[in-house]
């Protein structure tokens, strides 16, 4: 193992150098050897990444080497465990983006990368190089087919390419779950994943929604991965809020409803989020409105819209939610007038949908008018 770690460290150094001015010294032979080492790293990754006892050793090695390198080289980009799986690509991109990389290096690189060959066979002696033309064609093909929209009812709000991304994510999670003892690895993976997504958070939530909406009938393996994702969403906190809350605000309302319909666990979690949003509201007597006390939580109107979407979905989700709201209202004193209990008001607002002219509704309007006047 020691030898492996030593080699890993050395390869990391080579990769770091490829992104610096020292790359000027490189020639065709250097590039060739760099690619060989990069391929070696890919092997190491494949061999050990799912092994819970060896992986931490590799991660330590990466951390220490990264620390050492960033001390010596300014602008050094740390190499993560995930990068190891695609080491040659990382090396290639690093060189492409380094304006100081010698042109002769690219010459030998492109000559070797089978950029221009039409067959996918690996030529003897070129196994260490990338199949760039295959990559380009495959990427283009995905772009081309990804622009379609599927007709099927279930997931029509999510674009086709997002659905496929969901499948890919689920498959990845499942692949790691297959090996026991990898729970924390899985969490760490999602955490770094989240970091790498950057500002593209709304899209990430759509991908996660797609993951959760995938049918389990045919592939039971997905259930465990979906459960993991839900736990992670709930447990991962950013700015004192769970990611789940952020997701519920980011996704379109009908998507949240659809998710709740899909699974009891999601329904309960979503309901908890809605309750939390409602609980942090206070009634502003002078304005006659419920005001959200927490900056990052949605307004009363948005909350009503969430519930309205649930109502529109019909039973049993609507029935269950309504029942729980009624219980909360009763616990709060079972008032029928506005401004005393947020549950009462939510119920009243949601039930005005199509029922506003019903007797109860009229009496409520009448009563609330009285209250308003009297206050």
């Amino acid at each position, binding site marked *: 193992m020691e030898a492996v770690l030593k080699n890993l460290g050395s390869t990391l150094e080579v990769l770091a150098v490829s992104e610096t001015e020292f790359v000027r010294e490189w020639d065709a032979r250097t590039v060739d050897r760099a690619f060989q080492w990069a391929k070696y790293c890919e092997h190491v990754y494949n061999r050990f990444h799912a092994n819970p006892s060896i992986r931490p050793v590799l991660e330590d090695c990466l951390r220490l080497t990264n620390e050492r390198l960033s001390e010596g080289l300014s602008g050094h980009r740390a190499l993560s465990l995930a990068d190891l799986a695609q080491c040659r690509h990382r090396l290639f991109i690093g060189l492409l983006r380094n304006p100081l990389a010698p042109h002769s290096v690219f010459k030998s690189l492109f000559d070797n990368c089978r*950029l221009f060959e039409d067959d996918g066979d690996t030529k003897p002696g070129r196994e260490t190089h990338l199949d760039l033309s295959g990559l380009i*064609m495959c990427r283009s093909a995905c772009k081309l087919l990804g622009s379609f929209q599927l007709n099927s009812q279930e997931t029509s709000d999510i674009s086709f390419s997002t659905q496929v991304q969901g499948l890919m994510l689920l498959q990845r999670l499942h692949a790691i779950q297959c090996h026991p003892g990898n729970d924390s690895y899985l969490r760490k993976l999602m955490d770094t994943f989240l970091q790498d997504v950057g500002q593209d958070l709304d899209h990430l939530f759509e991908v996660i929604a797609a993951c959760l909406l995938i049918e389990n009938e045919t592939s039971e393996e997905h259930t465990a991965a979906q459960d993991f994702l839900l736990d992670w969403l709930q447990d991962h906190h950013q700015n004192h809020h769970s990611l789940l809350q952020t997701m519920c605000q980011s996704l379109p309302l009908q998507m949240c409803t659809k998710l709740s319909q899909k699974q009891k666990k999601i329904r309960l979690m979503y309901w908890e989020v809605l309750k939390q949003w409602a609980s942090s509201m206070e009634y502003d007597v002078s304005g006659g409105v419920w005001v959200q006390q927490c900056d990052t939580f949605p307004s009363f109107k948005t909350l009503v819209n969430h519930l309205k979407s649930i109502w529109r979905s019909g039973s049993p989700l609507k029935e269950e939610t309504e029942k729980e709201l009624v219980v909360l209202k009763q616990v709060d004193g079972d008032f029928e007038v506005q401004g005393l209990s947020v549950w009462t008001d939510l119920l009243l607002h949601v039930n005005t949908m199509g029922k506003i002219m019903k007797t109860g509704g009229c009496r409520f309007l009448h009563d609330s008018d009285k209250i308003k006047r009297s206050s």
Partner: protein
Amino acid sequence: MAVIPELQVTFWMDKAVTWGQATSLSARLDTTKHLNSLRSFLQQLLEKLQSMSSTAEAMKNLPFVGQFLGRLCWNPYVTADGESSRLLLQCVWHLYSVNPQNAVERRANEWIQNLLYHLTSEEEGSVGHALEKHSGSLNQHYYSETLKKMVALLTEEVSMNCISSTPFTERCSCNRLRAVSVACVPLVTCPLVAPLTGALLKHQVSCGCSHLSEEFIEAVSTAWLSKKLVIEDLAVIALWCHSLSSLERAVLSLLESVLSDQGSVMQSLEKTVTDSLLPKASALHCHLSLLVNDVFRNVLMTMEENLAVRSLIQVFTACFLQIRTDQNPEERPPLKAFFPHVPQSLLTPLLTTPSEVPKQAWLQHLCWIRELVQEILCERNGEEEGKEKEEEEKSRRQRRAVFETWFLLVQCGHWVDAAAELLVSVGSEESEPLLFLLTFYHHPTNRGHQNTQQTMVAREAWSHLRILFLTHTPPPEKLSPVQELLSSMFSTNLVLHLLLNFAVFSQASASSVSEVIQKLLMEAGMRRKAAWILSSVQHRLNRADLLDARVHSRLKTLQDSLAPANAPGCT
């Protein structure tokens, strides 16, 4: 090196600009429409670039090239197409200078590096990038997995539409399917996309509109003919049901491969025919069979004497019948539907393969065939004698009947081969019906000769050959009458057919037979014809499992002595 015309440059530059990133359906359709010609243009451009000594020179002479190539790199309909993508990257690569001499060349290098970065990487800080990065596999593997999933979902959708496209749906799904078929044009040769291509081809619409773009049909058809298509048989057959012109192309391509071949196809004629999937398609769909046979008819009429064409038709029919035998009898249309122009009475004996009849009964079977054929021929002669004007139409119909009878005999040429084989051993009296069939097979018309005369020639040849192959070492004077008949313009094929059957099946020693053949068949064209006849004999024996060791070794000896290496003049 020719200059690229200004007009052409403007045309392609305009195209590249209009297509952009192929986001609209019209841009996609137009890109796929022009993919073929784009490949040619890129090839032309590449040759031009290769003739330039430096990037600066290329930029000076072809100022449009950078912008043109750059734009194409952003069009996934171009970069997903293997051939276009390869040419495009090669062109781009030719603009890269290992030792840039000036600012233009340095900028070009920088631009190329950026372009390659764009082509191979996702934008950082996106879900796509994060998914790729954390996929735990090689980048290409990640994309091929993604592609597989996309293809699986779309395939399911296309197949599902197949079931749910009832008349009650408000709008038919054809427009959608057509858009998918357009997207598949650059991808037809990609094995990962094959299930989708197959599903599109097999999709049946009830609304009557076409759900596949012409370009898609064209691309699939071309890929199939150039053997670049990895797809299930039924999808290819569905293509032909959808586009009869594709079927025609496939038949012509089969004919071409047989006609242009100098030996290799002949050895594996049956495999070539089976691999073409045309017999299978014919057996499954009657209307396809009729069209294939129409092409064969036309070719046969223009190349009546060509033995390769006859062997092909014969082997094709045998394969067709074999596939039919393997089909569920309840699911297949009646044979009569496949051969609508000949009387059922004739179909029964001819479509029975020789292997289904005990060898002792062959003579009787052939006599039966002969009687039926003669009946049809006599009707014709009767009409010709009458020459009544009002009978002209009837006469025309009967000429057609004779042609169709002959065409069926060519299709079932194994019986003619069987007759030729029997002629080696039968006596004078029994030879009459056999010689009749052989004569009709080789000389169905009265063109330039008389039928009776032809029968006499056949009998004469037969007598000479009997004498020739009875003697252990044929004296040279016995060869010359055969030689004469062989060189006669009107009897070559018939005499050759007889001669080779004697060579294979007579009791004369193999070495003396080889010698006779070498002496008689000097001319290259004749030797090729002989090779075709031998391969057809071999095919029949193989199929019927009649190829015993003796015949096999004789066939081999003969085939070897006819091989180009043993031709007279070659040492």
